């Protein structure tokens, strides 16, 4: 798997994650800036670092599970791992659209 293939798979994952909405704001989690990082390693191993708009939000667990499920189903992904972080905390400035 060369670097271009890894970058392409990361982009596919990013596009796939656009189907998940933040239930409160109603926008997809990618454009909201909730996906901090997507890395793809050799063998189709995908690692996603994400956050939620509010720390301790009761929807956090559902969002994390949804991201995991979604990434697993992207063709080319052999293993998916999702890491939830609040460093840095999300702020509205991270949105790409208001």
């Amino acid at each position: 798997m060369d670097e271009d293939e890894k970058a392409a798979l990361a982009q596919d994952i990013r596009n796939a994650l656009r189907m998940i909405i933040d239930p409160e704001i109603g926008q997809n989690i990618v454009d909201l800036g909730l996906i901090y990082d997507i890395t793809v390693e050799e063998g189709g191993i995908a690692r996603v670092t994400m956050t939620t708009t509010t720390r301790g939000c009761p929807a956090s667990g559902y969002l994390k599970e949804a991201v995991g499920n979604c990434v697993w189903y992207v063709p080319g992904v052999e293993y998916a791992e999702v890491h939830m972080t609040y460093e840095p905390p999300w702020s509205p400035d991270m949105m790409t659209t208001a």
Partner: protein
Amino acid sequence: MPGATLSRWTMSYFAIACLMLLTAQGLMAAGYGYPAASIGAPETLVVVHVTVIGWLSLLMGGALLQFVPVLVARPLVGGRFAAPALVLLAGGLAALVAGFVALSGSLDLPLFLLPLGGGMLLAGFGLLAGVLAATLRTARPLPLPARFVAAGLVCLLAAVLVGAAFTAGLSGLDESAPLARLLADGVPLHAALGLGGWLSITAVGVSYRLLAMFLLAPETDRRTSRAAWWAMVLAAGLVALCVVLVLFAVSGVDVLFTAALVLSLAAVALYGGDVRHIYRSRKRKQAELNIRATFPAFSALGLSLVLLNIPAVRGGEGVAAAVYLFVFGWLTGLGLAQLFKIVAFLTWLEAYGPILGRMPVPRVQDLVEERHARILFGVYYAACAAAALALLAGAPGMFRGLVALQLLATLALAREFIRTRRLAVVPAALRAPAGMVQPHLFLPLSASRR
């Protein structure tokens, strides 16, 4: 872990709270209690406690079980005590109300019901406050909104202790001189600790976080917010000190109580400035109805505190109108407006959270019908303001009619909450995707689905 912080019993707290609000409004519309009876009459005490314990405190308790973990980003500690606390609170309120009815002489019931109710309420609120305090304890140093909640919980315990002492005095269980003095002069202090300390300080704290969250405004630690906390805590401390002075027959209560009211007004002015700042720095262009319907509540808070700071109003018949505006304009208005959102949010989590990411799901906002509710909130607030004016003008017939109008608006809002729970507003294409489980109306989720 999905939904680990979804509070199991919150919806049950809310359901009983709404029933109690409707009961209280029904009693007032029927002419039970003030103004047909005096402010201190047992009939008035029935209405007041059904409203403040049955409606406002259960509403706040249910909301805090859900939102304290959000405020401190820690799971709820001792959540298994939420249900026993609810049973104790509902049972305690029933006994207390029966005791007041006995006191009124309209039914031949034992006066022992009063201290029984007081004791059960003390146990129920103690349990609830214990759960919340234990959760807060895991997150020290506390963020500012949580510090408001902590102060509110201390006030709750103070208010309940004074109330329990009242029940001992009213039932004749304790006829000591200090308690007799507290019964004679302590009612405004009990009310201030409950309505101002417990319900308002807590509501202010939670609103700092929720407003920023719902409006997508940056959460900043402002000096004015910290000053508001200090002013509110000082005011509550002065009121608590007044209780001690009354018990030991020391003079100075009036001066301290007046100072507490002035501090409260200053705190509310600071809070108002903060709310304005949060609203102006929002990233969400269109505020949703739960926010817009809160603005009249803020106005009612400011206006009622201005009125209570006028000695002629506070010492005269005007106090009833000011307190009515505080309870039904500020606390109830805020409560109904936030319920509109919270019921939708919790229902979404129960119904659609587990299938998020597997198939298209509606937004939280798709679970509510703002168009109807906007009119209902308008009717509610207009009737509330007019009812307060009717009290001020000494027009009891008009007051009852306007409370009946408020009751109708509240009933219609309760119907909206039920429609949200039943997913009745959700577009048909998104309503029931495969794997979705319909939430119960008010009973908790089964443990396996949490």
